[in-house]
């Protein structure tokens, strides 16, 4: 009996994922209303719950893809994978107020520049503080603080050590997870309540998954504005990481 149910889940992976995520959202919305009187968004609870499940599943399977490493939940991998995620992000653009987005365009560019430089400097300085002295390792760890894609792309381009690469990816993933969980907590404090600041937020935080999760948990109407700038982040990071940043670091550390 159990085996047959498992078989259905494996065979109908995406459909099963819809049902599972739907159940998760239902539980989260109930928890939001009953336990927090609506103060914490149901989506924020669902995202944190998703991360917790990913942690538990990761410990159990030893894999890298959280719940999606369990065969019965493989559909979650498809549903939350880059393809459908990007598809849904693009769809949110349909709700964008063009005037508002255009007005904040320059701000978005400025945010992108700061959002690439600041994390890199922090990451690079941390690497130096922990005893890394070669330009390749410092650059790779710094790039990881930008996003978890910029890190390995830069590391691969520079021929970094695999342990350093792992550290770089872990930094980016940690940042993404912290953005998802932390954004709703600090949103009011940093004035994240309008399209303008959402565009600045997207450019500064970079990590698409972090921004996507953080804004969804904070206020859905801000999602398209943040996503608009965030999606340029990884590309820019990959552009300057192995070139401008590496050359600068090498010039400094010799």
């Amino acid at each position, binding site marked *: 009996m159990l085996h047959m149910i498992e078989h259905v889940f494996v065979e109908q992976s995406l459909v099963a994922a819809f049902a599972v995520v*739907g159940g998760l959202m239902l539980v989260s919305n109930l928890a939001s209303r009953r336990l927090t009187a609506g103060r914490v968004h149901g989506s924020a609870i*669902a*995202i*944190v719950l*998703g*991360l917790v499940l*990913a942690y538990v599943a*990761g410990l159990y399977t030893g894999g890298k893809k959280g719940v999606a490493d369990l065969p019965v*939940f493989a559909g*979650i991998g498809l*549903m*939350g*994978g880059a393809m459908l995620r*990007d*598809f849904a*992000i*693009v*769809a*949110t*653009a*349909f*709700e*964008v*107020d063009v005037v*508002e987005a255009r007005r904040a365009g320059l701000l978005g560019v400025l*945010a992108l520049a*700061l959002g690439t430089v*600041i*994390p890199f400097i922090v*990451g690079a300085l*941390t*690497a130096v503080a922990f005893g890394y002295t070669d330009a390749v390792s410092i650059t790779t*760890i710094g790039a990881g603080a930008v996003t978890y894609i910029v890190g390995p*792309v830069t590391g*691969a381009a520079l021929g970094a050590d695999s342990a350093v690469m792992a550290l770089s990816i*872990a*930094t980016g993933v*940690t*940042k993404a997870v*912290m953005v998802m969980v932390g954004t709703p907590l600090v949103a009011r404090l*940093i004035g*994240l309540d*309008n*399209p*303008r*600041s959402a565009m*600045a937020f997207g450019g*500064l935080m970079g990590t*698409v*998954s972090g921004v*996507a999760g953080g804004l*969804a948990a904070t206020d*859905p*109407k801000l999602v*398209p504005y943040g996503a608009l*700038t965030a*999606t340029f982040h990884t*590309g820019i990071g*990959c*552009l300057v990481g192995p070139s401008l940043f590496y050359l600068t670091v090498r010039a400094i550390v010799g």
Partner: protein
Amino acid sequence: MTIFGVALLALCTLIGVFLGDLLGVALGVKANVGGVGLAMILLIAARSWLVARGKLGGGIKLGVEFWSTMYIPIVVAMAAQQNVVAAVRGGPIVLIAATVSLLLCFACVALLGHFGRRDAPLENEQIRHGGAVIAGDGDEALSPSPPARPQPARKV
């Protein structure tokens, strides 16, 4: 027809990602440069074009907006497949680099948000409606679009 909306969304995504790849090659980067952002701009342009010609029918809207309403569930599925174990086990270097850069960036959001902030209320119908759609609030999503822009002719 609904499929026209879904197809429009798919087409914008494909073209945007392709342009992002091209941009990456042109810049000599091993990554897609802003493909999704370009796709979003294409979709915004397509929407304006359809509205201006009065061709934005209910079917097309439904096809695109369905996927906006699926946004949050998809993000939850995305969260459930993150490598959280690696993040938790990263150790002090990972924790310090991530936390400090995050705090500095949050501070910058507060700072940048103040530039050119207008006193006029930023909330308008279009933004509010968008929020309701993305939140997956069915009743609101199915209500007619706010009259924030030229009304399409009554021909579907």
